[in-house]
């Protein structure tokens, strides 16, 4: 009799513990806050193998266009697919750029700018020359700085067919 009672009590305790563990750590518990923290779009894979490939190997990358304040447009546009490499990347804004503004263009993580960033005389655009490559997914990252010295980053990308 004693052994039966002890066995039943033991089973009850195990069931309660298992239930509590399920409630605490079971499915659904970790998902309750995901709506607030999830990112909305797919991650960039900018450093994936892409540049200098043959047409059979080349796959155009899909870039996010992260815009700094006052971004208006760019040449090339985000996700443009070009048949030849442009001589420069130019980004237009609707407010005065200041010193410190800079464009960086990379291909497989390697810098592809061929010279320093130039700010136009009206302070509304900046550009940087780039090196040519075929079968390449170029990632453009830029820093736009304002008259008080504060700066903000943006990024986009474009591709050149093999």
């Amino acid at each position, binding site marked *: *009799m*004693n052994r039966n009672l002890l066995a039943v009590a033991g089973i009850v305790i195990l069931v*309660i513990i298992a239930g*509590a563990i399920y409630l*605490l750590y079971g499915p659904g518990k970790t998902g309750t806050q995901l709506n607030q923290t999830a990112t909305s*779009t797919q991650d960039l894979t900018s450093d994936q193998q892409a540049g200098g490939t043959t047409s059979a190997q080349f796959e155009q990358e899909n870039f996010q266009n992260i*815009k700094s304040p006052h971004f*208006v447009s760019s040449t090339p546009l985000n996700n443009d697919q070009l048949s030849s490499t442009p001589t420069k990347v130019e980004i237009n804004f609707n407010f005065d750029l200041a010193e410190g503004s800079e464009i960086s263009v990379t291909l497989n993580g390697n810098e592809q700018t061929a010279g320093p960033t130039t700010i136009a005389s009206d302070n509304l655009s900046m550009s940087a020359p780039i090196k040519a490559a075929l079968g390449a997914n170029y990632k453009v990252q830029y820093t736009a700085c*304002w*008259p008080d010295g504060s700066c903000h980053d943006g990024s986009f990308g474009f591709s050149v067919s093999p």
Partner: protein
Amino acid sequence: MKKPQILNLLLLIIVVIFISFFIFNNFKKDTSLAPSSFVKTPHFLDSTPMHDEIYVAQPVNITINFDFDLATGSEIFVVDDQGQQAATGDIKIEDSNTALKKDLTGQLSDGKYKVMYKACWPDGSCHDGSFEFSIDSKKISEYLDMRGRGEVTVKMTGLKYEPEKIIISPETKIVWENLEDIGHFVNTETHPEHTYFPSQNSRELKLGDIFETVFEKPGQYNYHCSAHVPEGMLGAIVVAN
């Protein structure tokens, strides 16, 4: 130990375990899921009004800035502390699809307001965010009353706007004039997006240059010099009848 004692002990253990897990589980819920008044969506940069900012008069709109393209389905809701709707009109997406804007109803009273927004992206996904602001008209006494004039001049000198805080009537034209040999700006909130009232955005004003804007809609318009925000070159206009 006799049988009844063993049973009592087991019962006690079961009750203690059950209560412990119940309390722990609820404590965990309280800490992890507590609603926060300031919830940022992905790509959120800032807003006008800012979270917890206190205005002396109602803002003319709610403007929320992002660094990514907003899509259809994005929305802003504003409620007062009684749960009454305080926003009106259509949702607007401006500034290269990065600014979400909605007008506020006229005659909002003092109190706390909660802004809840939904930011939707080109792939159709949406995320919710929220923040709060307050209206407290008691500090309007700090503002220089210049109502009843068709035109008001604000000077830019000594890294300040002179006068800094003014009340004007609707339809008043304000003329800013730079009186010093340092470049200045007149830019609407926030810095550096300048999206709240875009008509109040100048380029650089050199010595002797002027910039002017007509203010039609009652409400509060905060602004700044984009070259001298760290120096505190800030101004505020309240448009009131």
